């Protein structure tokens, strides 16, 4: 038996965060071990380098129900693989600008550089991003209808 309720559920966004293994993922770790809080609806996906993120990953995340996608990597110049994040920077600048051209809100996509020592920054970046996306509301434009079936 399902409960029939007219009560409106509060919107909590699904956030996908791609974090590079060497800086941002360690930064997230530091945020955790320093007992800093950031919203639990941020789902972290660890990637070897921010330039591992294919534009398809971002689109697929949106398609499968993400309301915002954030990409975190080492600060430019600090890449573990020397130049990886420089390519990311160009790629994502173009992809995000293009998504905006297709009519997708610019605020749903973001790139931030977070180092392994910046636990506090990781938490504040995530808090800020979740706040922005919550204000924007649900991602209706990029979602695949099929993922909504079960709801």
């Amino acid at each position: 038996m399902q409960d029939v309720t007219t009560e409106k559920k509060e919107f909590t966004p699904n956030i996908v965060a791609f974090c590079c293994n060497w800086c941002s993922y360690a930064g997230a770790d530091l945020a955790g071990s320093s007992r800093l809080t950031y919203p639990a609806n941020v789902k972290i996906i660890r990637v070897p380098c921010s330039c591992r993120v294919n534009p398809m990953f971002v689109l697929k995340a949106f398609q499968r129900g993400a309301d915002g996608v954030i990409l975190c990597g080492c600060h430019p110049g600090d890449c573990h693989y020397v130049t990886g994040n420089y390519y990311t920077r160009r790629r994502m600048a173009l992809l995000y600008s293009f998504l905006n051209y297709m009519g997708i809100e610019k605020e749903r996509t973001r790139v931030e550089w977070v180092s392994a020592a910046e636990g506090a920054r990781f938490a504040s970046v995530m808090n800020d991003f979740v706040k922005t996306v919550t204000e924007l509301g649900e991602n209706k434009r990029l979602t695949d209808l099929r993922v909504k079936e079960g709801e």
Partner: protein
Amino acid sequence: MKEVELKMLDRAKALLESGEVARVVGWKKGDFCFDPAPAVFETVEELDGFVYDWFCGANLSKYLIQIAKKEGKTAVFLKPCDTYSFNQLVKEHRIDREKVYVIAVECLAKLDVEKMKAKGVSMIESVEVVDKEVRVKTAYGEETLSKPEVILTKCETCQKTHQAKDEEIIVHERPERDVNRFAEVEKLEAMTEDERFAFWRNELSKCIRCNACRNVCPACSCVKCVFDNPASGIAAKANDDKFEEQLFHIIRAFHVAGRCTDCGECSRVCPQNIPLHLLNRKFIKDIDGLYGEFQAGETTEGKTPLTSFTEGDVEPKDVFQGEAK
């Protein structure tokens, strides 16, 4: 154009007879005067069907990937816009430059039969172009159309010149033009997000996923395409999904970003008349604005914008409508 065609035919014959080339890539007559098709001619006798007229809009450079692998040299007729695609393919090591003999031919813009039909001209029997007039002979009589109104969309803003040639066949001088190819992109950028979204959903929902744009695109030369993988979940059109077409076109435009020469073939072949060139042009405009002017296919060397970087590149968050804040 007849004059040019005869010169081309002479050269093709001479090249084949002397054995300098093993085959010639050009256009052959179709069932009607307005549907010539790309073709390979291996003997002088086959050249009977050779044609070069106002409807030869097809870009022949992509065919060379397969054809130039065969034994012997291949001669090809390339229009100005085709030479950019050719250079790009040489740069990507898809074509061996040594095995191709490029004959640059004059273009003067090609006609779009769909645009002529849209103007109510049907049963076209022959076409003659005099300056800016298109004189059409149909089964019902004669009609005169204005040429700028019935040329292919890709020709409307073309300012390209031959970038690769071993010899050239030019008879007429091309008139100088002052056009902004980004005008339509700018118009879209000036819209609100909602309007842009509505525009693209309207256009892209017409997509039938026939993959014609991908198959004709000289930049889409992967041996195995991501969209051919049945396990990808994006290999065909999903009936119940509004986003599927967008995903296909976003990814396709991204895959050719920095390599697209703006040859406009995608829009030409689209059976649903989706303005696909506006997707690629957005990337070209952004790249020009953010990383300096770049025209793919101008040379056969050097790096593309997405395979290079500078330390002071603009941050993604500072990019707004293709410009750094």
